[in-house]
């Protein structure tokens, strides 16, 4: 049954990359990437939870005066 776990793994990877791509297209950065960045640069601080990070990213994206939509 090792084949099945491999297939499942592959499907999960595919779903992950689809999710990442669509998220970045709508302007939502990846939480996993943030965790990586955080581990690398601020290893002694606790990272934000996924919910906190979501709000933080929203705030950055829709910051006052930022033009991110056109006609």
């Amino acid at each position, binding site marked *: 049954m090792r084949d099945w776990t491999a297939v499942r793994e592959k499907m999960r990877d595919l779903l992950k990359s689809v999710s990442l791509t669509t998220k*970045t297209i*709508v302007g939502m950065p990846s939480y996993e990437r943030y965790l990586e960045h955080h581990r690398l640069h601020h290893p002694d601080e606790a990272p934000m939870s996924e919910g906190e990070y979501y709000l933080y*990213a929203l705030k950055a994206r829709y910051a006052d005066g930022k033009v991110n939509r056109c006609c």
Partner: protein
Amino acid sequence: MTRRIASILLWGLIAALGAVAFAVLALARGETVNAAWLLTAAIVTYAVAYRFYSRFIATRIFALDDRRATPAEVRNDGKDYVPMNKWVLFGHHFAAIAGAGPLVGPVLAAQMGYLPGTLWILIGVALAGAVQDMVVLIASMRRDGKSLGQIAREEIGPVGGIVASIGTLSILVILVAVLALVVVKALAQSPWGVFTVAMTIPIAMFMGVYMRFIRPGKVLEGSLIGFVLLMLALYFGRTVAENPALAPYFTFDAGTLAILIAVYGFLASVLPVWLLLAPRDYLSSFLKIGTIVLLAIGIFIVMPEIRMPAVTRFVDGTGPVFSGPLFPFLFITIACGAVSGFHSLVASGTTPKLIEKESHARMIGYGAMLMESFVAIMAMIAAAHLEPGLYFAMNAPAAVIGTTAEQAAAKVSEWGFVISPELIEQMAKDVGEQTILSRTGGAPTLAVGMAEIFSQFMAGAKAFWYHFAILFEAVFILTTVDAGTRIGRFILQDLVGNVYKPFARTDRWVNNVVASAIFTAMWGYFVYWGAIDPFGGINSLWALFGISNQMLAAIALAVGTTVLIKMGKARYAWVTVVPFTWLLATTLTAALMKLFSANPAVGFLAHAAKYQAGIDRGEVLAPAADMRVMQQIVFNDRLDAVVTGFFILVVVTLVLSAFRLWYRILVQKERVPLMESPYVPSKL
């Protein structure tokens, strides 16, 4: 060497194919042409322009260098500055620049025939629109992602600062107003449409709560649920519209809808972003990309016939959809899709901070604009595929064609576009609307065209696809209304803050509410008046929008030219100078004609004078219903004239300060430093 020969052969063949396609389009007289020729002409133009012209700009002018680190690499902070995959960023940038603009302009321009609009879209994008986007993107990328305003201030001088802000603010007012008016015109007397679009508000709020509290940060899940709910709302919209007890609650006239949309815009701009703006933005982005891909597939499978003549007699300026002759008004009517000044604000904001390698700027800047141009071409195909008589019945104002199918059919047939009243009524029934007469604003025409194409290659009734198309346009117009109101509010606070400091503080909710209310009132006024205007509203407002958008493009290209000259590339400056000159010529001619033309159908002041004379004689002139409307018409014409005059002032001020600088550098040989960020070698 063989590769070189193969390449020459291949591109020679592509060019020949394009030449054939253009010849077929241009020479077709009296018979229908297949959309395949239009698509071929478009795709060949894009391929040649991208392969040769964008490469010329990338290598010869800017010498894009992958060994030079981009701001995303140098300042990587995991938030604003992040190196992003080229294709993902392409999608992101495209979703940001493409909205309803490229869908509406070509539909309006189709009144002159498909050929003039198509040629302008293709030549315009290759030599003006995509060049502007790419040049601004690169200029901003080499300046840490600074905004166009900041670049203008640093490279040209301080004069621009406040003038640019006031200019952007007034463009925003007109932009939000005209797009909101498109939605209002599409939803008037349409309970199905109103129900579906109204449901997007609770659906978006549910998504917002879901992504914030139930499954924090799960954007894809939330959007999928939202999409399913949206399709249910679309499906049940018909049930609501056919239910005599429910339908009246969702049936509004244009004036009421205009007030509702203004109230909505105000609320949306003061509510927290996670609740309404962000979730709807996601829905809108996915719907946009999905529907555009679907439309492309549909057009390629169905290969619709183009029924509109190549050139109609309305090139002389007497057309019912918008007035004014081909030059300059065609080039004002189609802004987005050929060249859109607003892109320069996006290309100098978020995107340059996400570019991984300098060379990617070519595909993202030039390539994404070619995609937008393709959207405009598809809109042109959808509109030109309709029976021309139907097109004019849908797009001419009631003041011209009357309010019944008989009157409209008679009038439109008189112009030479023969149509029967039965066909008009049948189409209204097919798409599930009470009437399709005088649905100005472009959205309903495009929706009928899309419904025709979709119902030919997929299951589903025309009525469903019609309302799907309306929903799709309304959703991303409303996103622009939200976002535009927020940006406008901020610029307003910033401007007033120069005089009264505390107003600039955006963390005070009182300031936000007051500024939102003022800004909403500004655009709300234009929407309300446009909605009840017997001339259709779009007629004057779309021209103002086109003029302002193209003037912004002229300003962006002036900034681009300045950058090129300062880089020591003055011998290549024609790349930006040619489109700059063209835009300056068309916008100034159009603006001056809108102001001073003696023809009341074109000139605001002549129109005001005509109605003022009526008031003085105590005579009510059609289509005004009474004296009060007469006075309102005169007031609005004069207001439009003031706005137009103001736009002229803004662009002339900025252009003159650029000219002075060019003169100092080129003639007086003065040394003026380029304000680029320093060269940092890339480690990626």
